């Protein structure tokens, strides 16, 4: 128990150091944040323009889609800023610096996770939150404690899921050494996918994002429960409420695969 507490303390120390380092360049930080906010917010402008023209999307309204959009963007932003260490991990393998990490008497996961905390991602978080709040103001949801908790759990689930994807991406570099951008398709593409309800996609595409990369768990299924509607695709209420656990399980599995990867690691020697 004490060991875990100590690890958590160390993790926050890592984050603090990284944060202070970035705040040395305040103007740059501000500009990057605003830039990211605009770059990601423009997507919502597109969605808004389409709803202005078409009225609805297979029965879904703009505030409902905005809820999907807000949840997935907030979750992704949190994962991106906390998981930056895994994002840039392939450089460590390439340069051979991972050897040093292995020598320290701490878990590799803790050290890589604590390597960098990316403040710039607040841009995405801010616009995601703004859209989320706008959606909540326009949806007539009957709020109770369970629903509010489910909403938080869903955002958390999305963060876990994307974090897991970043870990997997980093793990692959144990075998390939090179950075593989192909997984960007699942992270950024997953965000893009999750911005809309799953019902609009083709069946094979839906299955992929439910059972392989479970974005449906971190978004589509629980949102149905929050909106208090029966799932048009036929998932049970029980499935809707327990779905957010899927994101967490995905992260746990990813971390296990990471451990296999570490055992497989052979230094490039440079």
């Amino acid at each position, binding site marked *: 128990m004490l060991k875990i507490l100590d690890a958590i303390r160390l993790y926050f120390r890592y984050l603090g150091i990284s944060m202070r380092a970035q705040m040395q360049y305040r103007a*740059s930080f501000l*500009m*990057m944040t*605003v*830039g*990211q906010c*605009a*770059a990601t917010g*423009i*997507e919502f*402008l*597109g969605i808004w*323009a*389409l709803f*202005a*023209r*078409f*009225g*609805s*999307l*297979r*029965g879904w309204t703009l505030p409902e889609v905005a809820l999907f959009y807000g949840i997935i963007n907030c979750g992704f932003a949190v994962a991106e800023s906390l998981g930056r260490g895994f994002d840039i991990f392939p450089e460590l393998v390439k340069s051979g610096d991972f050897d040093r990490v292995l020598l320290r008497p701490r878990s590799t996961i803790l050290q890589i996770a604590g390597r960098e905390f990316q403040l710039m991602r607040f841009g995405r978080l801010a616009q995601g939150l703004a859209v989320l709040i706008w959606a909540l103001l326009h949806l007539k949801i009957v709020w109770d404690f369970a629903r509010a908790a489910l909403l938080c759990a869903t955002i958390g689930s999305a963060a876990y899921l994307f974090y897991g994807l970043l870990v997997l991406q980093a793990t692959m570099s144990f075998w390939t050494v*090179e950075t*593989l*951008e*192909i997984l*960007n*398709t699942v992270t950024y*593409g997953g965000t*893009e*996918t999750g911005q*809309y309800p799953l019902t*609009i*996609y*083709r069946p094979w*595409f839906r299955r992929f994002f439910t059972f392989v990369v479970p974005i449906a768990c971190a978004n589509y299924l629980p949102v149905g429960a929050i909106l208090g509607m029966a799932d048009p695709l036929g998932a049970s209420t029980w499935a809707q409420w327990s779905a957010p656990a899927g994101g967490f399980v995905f992260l746990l599995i990813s971390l296990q695969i990471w451990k296999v990867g570490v055992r497989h690691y052979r230094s490039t020697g440079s």
Partner: protein
Amino acid sequence: MVSPVIGGRGAAFRPYLSILGARFRVLLQYRAAAVAGFGTQLFWGLIRMMIFTGFYASTTRAQPMSLPQVITYVWLGQALFAMLPWSLDAEIRAMIRSGAVAYELVRPLDLYSWWYCRCLAARVAPTLLRSLPLFCVAGIFFGLQAPPSWSSGIAWFAATVGSLLVGCAFSNLMNISLLWTITGDGISRLVPTLVFALSGMLLPLPLFPNWAQRILAFIPFRDMVDLPFRLYVGQIPAVEAGSVLAQQIAWTLILMFFGRWLLARGLSRLVVQGG
């Protein structure tokens, strides 16, 4: 006495052509990046295709473009993605940062044209690598249609060349602005966003609200994506290709003059720290 003059002119162009060729061969080496780009673009196109199909299934109102036209438009955007002025020239950026830009001034070349040529190569080479496989796959499996007529196809091709010229004139402007901002962090983030939203990559411009159309008509971004694509799908009839081209050339000239003026001003105040 005529031929030496022409020969002289040809000789003046030669260094720029060889720059173009050399840069081209360098950029064609990045095949792995092209494969990754292909996967990403294909995935993106699929998502967008399903989204638009969903929207079109939800309305009975007449729209400025039909669904097959929009789907073709989306695939064209994915195939020609690399052609847009997305990024600053990383090498120019590094040169300005390190002060090595001073060497650029010593070259017996016109600096604006030299940077413009680099830009042309940087747009065309990756596009050639990436677009052909995507055209094939999307054409066979995912609803990318051929132009309705030969004349539409030819008009599209001409307008694509035009869009390349406008795009590079715009990119070069971004490069030149580095003489002031040095790092270009803000520009390299904000400008691509603007281009993405207003050129037709975000969604086909005719689908924007009607009040926005008047604004979009007065800015150069639609010349980079939207107009050539609409010529391709036949939403703009091929007979209007002339006016599209004229507009593209006019914007190219405006952006070029502005770029040259800006470059001259930037160079007159350029201080390179020795060392």
